[in-house]
């Protein structure tokens, strides 16, 4: 059963087409990821689905009811966690959660009990009486997620949930999201961390320049490339014309320079790492390190969209730091 159906959703800002007729569905109880580079239309899509932006065209259906022209009526069904925290810095953590509960009509005793439970669940019990402005970035993000689910919404929207926070907090948030999903909450998230999407999502959609390029189950997307053999080598001694040189000494292999010292070699045929290293060293290329890898969702993303995932990640992280 679909909890969300989106048909031909389009958004113009003046002449600029931010989202171009996207269509997809989100099944009840799944984790759905929207992946794409900066400016692809992810946040605009979330804004249209949650009522912070009006669609120029298209339809938004929640649990079988068309709410396109009155998303406000569907807002009790959703929790929203934006890419930047939107809680009140001058209120304590507890006051913030209770305020958010009241916005959804929770009575005083109910919102206090729910807030206490969430502080416990999100590991923020000791910080509940601290002002929100005194929270660390990771704590702020966790509390913002808690505020998004205080009214137990059937579907939770998260815009870049782990961007700009430390590794431990990011892991904690991923575990929280997995737990929530196990308990039945449908999760719709945008992320530029493709490995995060691979770990968390049941299905993903690739969005580029406002268009959805591909939507499928993660396993289905990875299936065609799962047998691919990939070798990442750290080399020294060659700077110019490396790719041409590799093509000539390793015919039938796909070779790509990742950085000054790293190259990626892949083939559909099985090969031995030692054999490749020997050929390269005979050609005067010193191999410092070799690492075998399996094909991931990132490989599929790069293949389908033509966008380098590493570049996308750097761009987003730079933006998060500037913010």
């Amino acid at each position, binding site marked *: 059963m679909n909890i969300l159906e989106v048909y031909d959703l389009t958004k113009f800002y003046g002449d600029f087409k931010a989202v171009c007729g996207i269509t997809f569905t989100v099944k009840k109880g799944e984790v759905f990821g929207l992946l794409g580079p900066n400016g692809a239309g992810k946040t605009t899509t979330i804004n249209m689905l949650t009522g*912070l932006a*009006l669609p120029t065209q298209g339809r938004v259906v929640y649990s079988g009811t068309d709410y396109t022209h009155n998303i406000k009526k569907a807002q009790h069904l959703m929790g929203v966690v934006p890419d930047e925290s939107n*809680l009140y*810095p001058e209120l304590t953590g507890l006051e913030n959660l209770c305020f*958010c509960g009241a916005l*959804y009509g929770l009575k005083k005793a109910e919102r206090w009990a729910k807030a206490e439970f969430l502080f416990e669940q999100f590991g923020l019990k000791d910080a509940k009486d601290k002002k929100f402005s005194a929270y660390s970035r990771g704590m702020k993000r966790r509390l913002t997620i808690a505020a998004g689910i205080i009214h137990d919404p059937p579907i939770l929207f998260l815009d870049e949930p782990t961007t700009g926070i430390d590794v431990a907090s990011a892991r904690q948030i991923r575990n929280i999201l997995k737990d929530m999903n196990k308990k039945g909450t449908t999760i719709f998230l945008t992320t530029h961390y493709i490995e995060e999407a691979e770990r968390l999502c049941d299905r993903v959609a690739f969005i580029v320049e406002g268009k959805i390029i591909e939507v499928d189950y993660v396993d289905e997307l990875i299936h065609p490339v799962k047998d691919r053999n990939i070798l990442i080598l750290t080399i020294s001694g060659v700077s110019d014309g490396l790719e041409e040189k590799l093509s000539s000494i390793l015919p039938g292999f796909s070779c790509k320079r990742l950085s000054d010292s790293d190259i990626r070699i892949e083939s559909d045929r099985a090969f031995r790492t030692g054999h490749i290293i020997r050929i390269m060293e005979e050609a005067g290329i010193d191999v410092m390190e070799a690492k075998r890898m399996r094909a991931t969702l990132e490989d599929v993303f790069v293949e389908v969209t033509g966008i380098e995932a590493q570049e996308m990640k750097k761009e987003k992280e730079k933006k998060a730091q500037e913010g």
Partner: protein
Amino acid sequence: MNNLIAFFAIFLKDIKTYYLKPPNISWGIIFPFAWAGMFFIRTGGNMMDVMSILLGIMAISILFGTTSMLSVTITFEKKSRTFDRILLSPIPLGLIMFAKTSGAILFGIVNAFVPYLVAGFFVNLSHIHLSIVMAAIVLISIASTFMGLFIATSVSEVFEAQTFSNFFRFPMIFLCGLFFPISKLPLFLRPLSYIMPLTYGVDILHGAINHSSALPYAFDFAVLFLFCAILFYISLYNIKKRWVF
């Protein structure tokens, strides 16, 4: 019931975070005293002058208190995206804005009664029609607050809100009949006086305090009410057009 819970949560949150802050409490007390002192020195310090300056101080206290607070707090919340949190909740937009403005309306009313209570220590206020004064203060407060809301929904930055507020406030002080009777203004300025909500509020206060209103009470109240409705409607339109676009 759910909407009522949300309404009071927004109202009480604003009272706590903005209007009960020490700088705002001191503003509410110092501002009317500063204006009273200014007029008192100018008129030579006669106790009888208290009655002539009372309504001006009450009106200016409301105007400055409400427009300053509301235009700045809403612009600030929009800028810091905390306002989005409220927009994302399932409360009708009109009710959200009514909750956001209620704190400022109450702040304006309290500000107006500070000079009234202080004046009571110096002169006899028994001849004043208190019920009419109260009704006028409430309506002036609502109209000024909605003007602050209109300003907040028309700008993007906090400094713009302050500048834009002054664009409305200062002409209004001089043209609404507080300091000079409208009949003594140059002919070309008089139409401007009649498109300002404060003119009608001040006229009611003139009638209730000094028994010298120029227009019938019913007309003044009706026009003030109309201004409130128009300003609120335009503000909601601005929000839909500029913030949920």
